[in-house]
């Protein structure tokens, strides 16, 4: 039940380049935290600082209440699974899993017991005497996880563990990881650039960009109430539509106005100034009769995914993506009229990129 606390953790390189900027994070025991962000956002560096593989330039790191800034990796009671698995090529699966235990001077009996238990759990007990090069990608991934599990560490660290696998295997391993975490229940910190992994695995998501934490929260909260335009755009596939517009007040009523469209806001918003960005997720848009349309445009691209359909509609100054059931029949070049559910829109300040809260939301 280890807790991990990051207090103002920063990583500054010799050339004064700040790659991680004052990250604050509290991870409770048994929590599955996913750090997600585009490449170069500092997520892996953050993980490596927690592991002790990278020095912490500023800030404090606590594992189980103990300050571990200067504690070497081996004494932090952690285990890490690397992106390229990092299995020892000259040792068979058993020896790979036993390596850490041997160094820690466990008895041969205990080593055998732990390795076979972990192997059973991961269904690799048939492979114990094979060498890494004789294993498939998925099997190697399991061995790497087995090597972490046998040590029974307080904290599991995963560095993009599924990104070397093909799409099908990735989905399979993802659900297995979730099952494993339920079973073992150790504190887990997982780094990925894949938002689907983040959404499906995490108890808590940490979104990073340019070294800064953008938002921390449970997956649905992040999805429904993104703090800023970056988070809104990063989570969700296809990505949220962003439309530049003006915020206008006419008496008690407020409107959003674009070049050739206008929409009356159903709730009270108070943006920083009149330049705002309207955000609508593709699933919240739908085609309507010309009379009740807010946007109109020409269908440019049609992507068929089998169960669903992505339509890209050119509305002049902007393009809108909407998600529809595959049964809808649209042809490219066709004019399409669109509307959306008013309560599903998100409004962002154009300058700061922060989301504009509804009045009643603020009170909460």
């Amino acid at each position: 039940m280890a807790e991990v606390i990051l207090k103002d953790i920063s990583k500054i390189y010799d050339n004064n380049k700040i790659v991680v900027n004052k990250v604050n994070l509290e991870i409770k025991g048994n929590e599955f935290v996913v750090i997600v962000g585009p490449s170069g956002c500092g997520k892996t560096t953050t993980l490596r600082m927690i592991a002790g593989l990278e020095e912490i330039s500023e800030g404090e790191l606590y594992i189980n209440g103990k300050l571990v800034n200067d504690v070497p990796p081996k004494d932090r009671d952690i285990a890490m699974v690397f992106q390229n698995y990092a299995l020892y090529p000259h040792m068979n699966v058993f020896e790979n899993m036993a390596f850490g235990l041997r160094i820690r001077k466990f008895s041969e009996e205990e080593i055998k017991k732990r390795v076979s238990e972990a192997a059973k759990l991961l269904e690799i007990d048939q492979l114990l005497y094979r060498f890494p090069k004789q294993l498939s990608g998925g099997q190697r991934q399991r061995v790497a996880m087995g090597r972490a599990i046998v040590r029974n560490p307080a904290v599991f660290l995963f560095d993009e563990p599924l990104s070397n696998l093909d799409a099908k295997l990735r989905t399979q391993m993802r659900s297995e990881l979730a099952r494993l975490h339920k079973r073992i229940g150790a504190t887990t910190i997982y780094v990925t650039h894949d938002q689907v992994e983040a959404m499906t695995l995490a108890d808590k998501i940490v979104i990073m960009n340019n070294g800064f934490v953008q938002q921390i929260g449970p997956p649905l909260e992040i999805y429904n109430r993104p703090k800023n335009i970056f988070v809104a755009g990063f989570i969700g596939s296809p990505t949220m539509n962003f439309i530049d517009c003006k915020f206008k007040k006419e008496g008690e009523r407020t409107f959003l106005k674009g070049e050739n469209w206008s929409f009356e806001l159903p709730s009270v918003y108070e943006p920083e100034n009149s330049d705002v960005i309207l955000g609508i997720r593709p699933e919240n848009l739908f085609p309507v009769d010309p009379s009740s349309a807010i946007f109109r445009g020409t269908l440019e691209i049609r992507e068929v995914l089998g169960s669903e359909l992505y339509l890209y509609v050119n509305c002049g100054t902007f393009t809108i993506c909407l998600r529809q059931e595959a049964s809808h029949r649209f042809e490219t070049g066709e004019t399409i009229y669109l509307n959306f559910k008013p309560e599903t829109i998100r409004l962002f300040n154009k300058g700061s990129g922060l989301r504009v809260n509804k009045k009643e939301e603020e009170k909460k």
Partner: protein
Amino acid sequence: MKIIRKTKLFLAQIITHIFLILFSIVTIYPVLWVFKMALSDSQNFRVSLNPVPESISFTNFSEVIFAKNMAGQYIFFYQLFNSVAVSFITTLLGVLLATTAAYAFSRFKFPLRRAGLMAFLVTQMFPGTMMMIPLYIIMDKLGLLNHLMGLALVYSTTSIPFCVWTLKGYFDTIPKELEESAMIDGAGRLKIFVKIILPLARPAIAVTALFSFMTAWNEFILAATFMNKETSYTLPVMLQHFVGAHNTEWGHFAAGAIIVALPVVILFYFLQKNLVSGLTAGSVKG
């Protein structure tokens, strides 16, 4: 169409093979000649195109092996021991120092790291004879002239730079994550080096060991300069003594050359598998 393509392919193969056979003959011919001379019972240099021995006699070999000096000592065995000892010490020193140095160059950041590597490279650009005089003076001052240890030291210093570069290149290809993983598993630097890096670098170590061994085994000039007693000669120096000012004992020379070459051939044979994977190391990620 198919037939034309097949004949073309066939012709190409024939031409390739003609070239290969030709160059093989060019390579093997002188060696056959040495065999012919060694197996003859005379010391003459007979000019004949035929490389097949006319007679087979092992007298040249036995005369080389069982030659005695004035004091009645079997000097060949002294010299054999010298060569073996010097080569082994050189290899041992070379591999030991080169692996550790190369690991440091590959993994650690320290001041003058690049300069150090460059310095190693630069020393390789000077011919060994150039360093003979300063080395002689140093060896003399240290009292290491006529000492096997002194010779081994000199050989090590010349072979280590090459070994460091080769090994560093190989260590660079070993993923850093392996070490980080071992670090988290609880291993210290030394343990990582011994348990992870060294076993993985076996092909490269085999290459550098062979190189060190051959440097020492075949070296002549320094050995001839620093060793001035018959019993402290190494085998290449012994060989040279068959070539006199007035006459040359070609039969002894050829037999001696074969005897000297034999250990290297045997070593090559056993290390060849490692050698090939060592030389191409790093080209493809395993």
